[in-house]
């Protein structure tokens, strides 16, 4: 928790009410105050002093560098084998922990993932679109991957893993912006599986505005692309994965490059319309695949979201689907940008670990210097930071409104 005073008490209250045996030491809640300067430390301390199963960890000074670092600290004092992680803005139902730990009865399961549902969907257009996107992403996408024995993803929150396995595969990588994707691939490449539990639903506060969405998406996309560069060949060569898991693994790694392919498809389309198909088009049938991907790939997410809303019996929300085009446009811009940022980050990291080469006669080397300066400023100022997602803290308000309407509806039915 980094500056989460608006939501800290709500999530701790949910864990106090959790339907799980609390007196035999199997259930412990570790609240990590990641160097907050607001009221978060006092809130978590208050809960830790009231309830023996809650522990508050405070990082002084060094906090706020991102979730992987904080998680690694929490893991040091976690004394049980199964560890579940939740972000501060989440509101799990009372059965959530039981549902999430159940799949670990299977000895092959190393990680588990539940379903995320935005609680503040009525708040803005962005939250409504996020609601639809989340529905498709979990109920259809993750569930299908799990059912087909492909690669369902550990999403870093409303999920968990075996502590011993995480230690064995090397803890959370603090250099990654998507530590969850990183762990998913580590688990699969070491022969473990991730289970998806659609019934382990949990509310989250979705981002409110487009600029917050851009920050969040940039972080996800860069992190995912970092994993793409690292695990692409490992996934292809893995002796553990099945053929279809490899295919799915590669597609999942490339999920944030899809918007870039779409952009290339659009630009190619405009170019060929204006200039006519150049002669080399005939030599590269691959371009046809770009067009095909552009045509079909664009609509996959719409079909996924529509199917999920249908299953959730929220048919009226299907009307909003065309407006997801706005989200698609935003994705195309943000993810394409993030792809190049991830390449720069990788190059920068490679340069840092290179051993020094011999002291050659000095050249003026202005071009390289300027390039390095630009890379440095890019590295320091723009990308390698964990952009904080602001919370409105209205989650419980929207939940209570929704609950009241549900009670009224049921009351009406009985009457």
């Amino acid at each position: 928790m980094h500056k989460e005073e608006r939501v800290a008490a709500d999530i701790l209250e949910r864990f106090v009410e959790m339907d799980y045996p609390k007196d035999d030491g199997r259930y412990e809640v570790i609240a990590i105050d990641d160097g907050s300067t607001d009221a978060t430390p006092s809130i978590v301390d208050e809960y830790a002093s009231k309830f023996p199963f809650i522990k508050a960890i405070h990082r002084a000074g060094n906090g706020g560098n991102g979730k992987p670092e904080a998680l690694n600290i929490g893991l040091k004092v976690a004394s049980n084998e199964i560890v579940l992680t939740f972000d501060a803005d989440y509101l799990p139902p009372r059965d959530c922990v039981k549902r999430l730990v159940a799949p670990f009865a299977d000895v092959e399961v190393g990680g588990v993932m539940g379903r995320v549902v935005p609680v503040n969907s009525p708040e803005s257009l962005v939250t409504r679109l996020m609601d639809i996107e989340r529905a498709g992403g979990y109920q259809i996408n993750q569930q299908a991957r799990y059912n087909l024995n492909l690669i369902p993803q550990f999403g870093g929150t409303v999920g968990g893993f075996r502590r011993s396995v995480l230690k064995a595969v090397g803890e959370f990588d603090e250099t990654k912006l998507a530590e969850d994707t990183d762990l998913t691939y580590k688990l699969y490449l070491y022969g473990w599986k991730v289970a998806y539990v659609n019934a382990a639903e949990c509310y989250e506060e979705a981002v409110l505005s487009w600029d917050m969405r851009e920050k969040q998406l940039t972080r996800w996309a860069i992190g995912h692309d970092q994993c793409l560069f690292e695990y692409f060949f490992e996934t292809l060569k893995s002796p553990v994965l099945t053929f279809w898991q490899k295919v799915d693994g590669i597609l999942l790694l490339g999920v944030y490059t899809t918007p870039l392919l779409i952009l290339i498809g659009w630009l190619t389309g405009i170019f060929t319309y204006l200039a006519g198909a150049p002669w080399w088009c005939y030599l590269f049938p691959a371009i046809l695949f770009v067009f095909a991907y552009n045509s079909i790939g664009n609509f996959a997410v719409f079909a996924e979201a529509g199917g999920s809303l249908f299953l959730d019996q929220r048919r009226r929300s299907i009307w909003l689907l065309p407006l997801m085009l706005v989200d698609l446009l935003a994705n195309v811009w943000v993810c394409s940008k993030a792809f190049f940022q991830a390449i720069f980050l990788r190059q920068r990291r490679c340069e840092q670990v290179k051993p020094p080469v011999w002291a050659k006669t000095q050249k003026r080397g202005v071009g390289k210097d300027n390039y390095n300066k630009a890379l440095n400023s890019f590295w320091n100022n723009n990308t390698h930071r964990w952009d904080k997602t602001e919370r409105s803290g209205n989650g419980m308000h929207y939940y209570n409104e929704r609950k009241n309407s549900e009670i009224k509806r049921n009351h009406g039915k009985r009457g």
Partner: protein
Amino acid sequence: MGREVNRLAAFGYLVVLGLFAGMIVLCFIWGVWEYKKPKDPGPLFIDLDRTIDERSEERARRVSKAAASEPSAHSRKAIKVAELSEPIQNPNVDETIRVRGDVRIPKGEVIPYNMIVEGNLTSQDDVTFQGGLHIKGRAIIGARNRIEKSIVCQKELVLLEDVIVYNCIDCEGLVFIKKGVRVGVGVEGGGIASASTICLEKAEGPLKIYSKEGIRIVGSVREAIPEDLKQIIEVKAT
């Protein structure tokens, strides 16, 4: 005649264009309508108070604990490889974490921080603390633990077999020391100071000890340890 044909063609062109534009607008009009006058603004209802009924809970409990914790053959191999290559030393400890509540450190863990524990601390065997410890409650330091700095404890402190403390120990309560414990092995040396009594199982090794209320040498520390602390140690051992 030619002009009329041209007009007709232009009209037809406009109609087609209009239809095309209309169909595009039609796509979005429903979305805008639902957004402006929502009938289903969400969220999807999840009853936060729901629980799993007893029957399914009992079924889940029947799963063998051993089976649940046993990694697969492939994974066991992976764990072995990873453990062998795991680096554990961190000489530059500059971060302190403060924990409110009781802490149990699992077996073999490496803690690369200074720790302030506002509660009781129990560590299992083979834990390495690369920083110092300040415990406001009781502390039970498991066998073969390594503390690379000092321990400050405000209540009872139990050091089990073969614990190594690089610097010193300052304790306000009773101190119980089992055999093989070494204190002050680092370059800065150090000893044990207690504002209460120190119970030693065997007076072996170069221990520098100061105790306000005296030092007792006992055959077995277990005899001297209060009953409630004994229980904690037994739980830890299991």
